[in-house]
């Protein structure tokens, strides 16, 4: 590992490492908010639909509150997404200058989705009480659809970096550009499905967790039950389907990106059949402290009892990703995903066949309370696994990340500033959202702006609730 790191670092321009950390940090932050942009509208729609169509006042209150929460989350999601747009050019001029016209089309279409989302978000948020209820409800639909289309577009670009398509390189020049072939590259569909479900898991478990905490504190009313069940229902479907989609996305990875698969599986040598290696660390070329389950590696990764996972020893050191990070990130994602899938299966099986409601059980509610953070960790780990696992390439087998980076001095300063600003944004968002929840519990409905005519324009002690 040490030799490997030294080798990689020696060849890199000064701007590479800070640019990678900057991208990882801002992308890792944005993906949480982007998930809300993708999945939250569908949940709001269900609550709002129930409220309007079934005349369910509880559901309508939920929809109204979730809409206000989404106003905060989508605003910071919009700006953190803008940061990424800028960073594509500022941090990776080599990538954008060379391949901008190959990979740009899905970004342009994503821009349109973002437009639709922002427009109908504005209409929806400000439409409460100002539009006929059914038409107002319909305004969520374009938002939800745009979220799906936008996800496909953005993920298609990342998939293209893994399986580049839609161009040829002749004498070092990019020619025969076909942006549609680049957009619909071999794994765009499966990778989209994987992230789409992940977004529903992240948002579903996170929102359900909020209401689980409320129930743990004794707030066991219809409001909390419905507030739990709608997002938990979405998360349940996504969590059960996700392992299947993940497996299908991983199929053929050994042929597409053997180094990534070897790192995922911590396969130092080619073994037939390959074991499933759980945990473990690569130290000086040796795998330590791993739990090997014979044959399972071949079965899961290659759909075969004998076909091996190609070992890292067959791949030149300069083409290998950082192995330990990739392996651990991958297994963290798989571990959490499996746990969440099992948990929802247990919940629904007990509910449907044994007529037993786990929402009565404290331990299950506690689990649900941490399921949101767990899903966030799984999503982050998945992104680390696929991104770090693709290194040292930015465009797999075509362009190295070091060739994409600029030569800017002082990017560490940018990273430091970004960490400070994003920490401030996180603290601000958490404070604002918690204050909203607190005021709702105290019976305030509309949450007027502090400058609004209803307020007294003086600081009062924020209300506290004995909980």
């Amino acid at each position, binding site marked *: 590992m040490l030799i490997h790191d030294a080798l990689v670092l020696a060849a890199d321009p000064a701007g590479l490492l800070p640019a990678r950390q900057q991208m990882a940090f801002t992308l890792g932050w944005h993906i949480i908010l982007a998930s809300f942009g993708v999945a939250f509208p569908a949940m709001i729609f269900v609550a709002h639909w129930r409220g309007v169509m079934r005349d369910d006042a509880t559901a309508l209150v939920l929809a109204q509150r979730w809409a206000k929460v989404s106003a905060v989350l989508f605003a910071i999601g919009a700006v953190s997404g803008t940061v990424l747009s800028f960073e594509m050019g500022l941090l990776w001029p080599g990538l954008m200058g060379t391949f901008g016209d190959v990979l740009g089309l899905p970004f342009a279409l994503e821009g349109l989705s973002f437009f*639709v989302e922002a427009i109908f978000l*504005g209409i929806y948020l400000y439409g409460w009480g100002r539009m006929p209820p059914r038409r107002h409800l319909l305004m969520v639909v374009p938002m939800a659809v745009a979220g799906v289309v936008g996800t496909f577009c953005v993920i298609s670009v990342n998939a293209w970096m893994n399986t580049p398509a839609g161009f040829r390189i002749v004498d070092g020049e990019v020619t025969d550009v076909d942006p549609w072939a680049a957009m619909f590259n071999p794994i765009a569909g499966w990778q989209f499905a994987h992230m789409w479900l992940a977004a529903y898991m992240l948002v579903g478990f996170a929102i359900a967790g909020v209401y689980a905490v409320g129930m743990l504190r004794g707030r066991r009313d219809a409001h909390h039950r419905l507030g739990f069940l709608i997002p938990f229902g979405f998360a349940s479907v996504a969590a059960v389907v996700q392992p299947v989609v993940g497996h299908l996305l991983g199929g053929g990875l050994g042929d597409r990106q053997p180094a990534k698969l070897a790192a995922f599986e911590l396969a130092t040598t080619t073994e037939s059949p390959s074991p499933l290696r759980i945990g473990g660390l690569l130290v000086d070329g040796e795998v330590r402290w791993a739990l090997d389950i014979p044959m399972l590696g071949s079965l899961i990764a290659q759909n075969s009892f004998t076909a091996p996972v190609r070992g890292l020893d067959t791949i030149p050191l300069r083409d290998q990703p950082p192995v330990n990070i990739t392996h651990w990130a991958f297994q963290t994602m798989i571990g959490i995903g499996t746990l969440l899938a099992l948990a929802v299966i247990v919940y629904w099986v007990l509910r449907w066949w044994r007529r037993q409601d786990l929402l009565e059980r404290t331990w299950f509610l506690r689990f649900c309370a941490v399921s949101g953070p767990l899903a966030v960790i799984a999503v982050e780990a998945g992104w680390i696994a696929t991104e770090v696992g693709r290194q040292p390439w930015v465009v797999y087998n075509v362009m190295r990340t070091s060739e994409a980076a600029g030569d800017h001095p002082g990017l560490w300063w940018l990273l430091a500033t970004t960490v400070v600003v994003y920490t401030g944004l996180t603290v601000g968002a958490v404070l604002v959202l918690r204050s909203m929840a607190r005021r709702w519990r105290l019976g305030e409905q509309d949450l007027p702006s502090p400058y609004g005519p209803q307020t007294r*324009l003086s600081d009062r002690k924020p209300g506290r609730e004995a909980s």
Partner: protein
Amino acid sequence: MTVELAVAMAMFVGLVAYAVFGGADFGSGFYDLTAGGAAHGAELRTEIDHSIGPVWEANHVWLIYVLVMWWTGFPTAFAAAMSTLILPLLLALLGIVLRGAGFAFRKFSPTLSQARVYGSLFAGSSLIAPFFLGTVAGAVASGRVPADGQGDRWSSWLNPTSLLVGVITVACCTFLAGSFLTADATRAGHRSLAAQLRRRTLLVGAVAGALVLGSLVPIARDAPTLAEGLTGRAAPLIVSSILGGMAALVLLLRRRVAAARVSAVIAVASVVVGWGAAQYPWLLVDEVTIADAAGAPATLRALLLVAALAGVIVIPSLVYLFRLTQSEQWAQG
């Protein structure tokens, strides 16, 4: 018309829309910042919330649209501009981030003191973002972005044209915002607020006009290619901008606020279109032409499709949103 010119024009339409609508949102920050203490400024700040709240995110997307059209249609020129102008772009980005977050947080602040913090972030950064975006425009227009992207990281935007364009951008945004807010306050029946906004918009308009006229000579000296275009091909647009600005001031004086808003839009849009016409056929002035910068033909054709889709999907939705915000029902409350 060549495909690349059509794509460049589609991109530029987005830039004009961003300047006008995004600019008006940014400009609101000036009135928010100068609204006075909490009690005195409450009505104006509420009006600003109400006026830009439903539309600012949609208006912001024009910037994203311009960026993606640029990097997809003209990738090498995009990379060159981003590399040379990394500093003002990062500062503009900081303004954009703090503006959006500050605005959203303020609306749901539990206490006045928190609202003050978020509000000052929102208002201050609303002016920072257009200033630095203006310096970027000035750098491109005065030929300070070399084709290889290795331009000087400081003098490329710390020069007469960039700084003047930065200030003019802030002034124009503020003028636009004033005319929009005056019209909104009038329609909502907030008379004293409308009168106060009208006075301040007149003042801002006079300052903005003087700034534009006063910087013509220094910019002409500093950016000869741009000056040649401004006095040649783009001259009618500059005239239309001056007439639009004067008409807006006269209409404001005569309390014709709705018409004044249209005139203000014409004035600002004409300046921006005039800049584009003046620097044609250059994408990066004196360095790269639109034709030289063009990406792959298949991609340019696909981008025209995207632009057409924007015309079919985005524009009608946007018109619907704007119509709603201008309707009787939305003006109240």
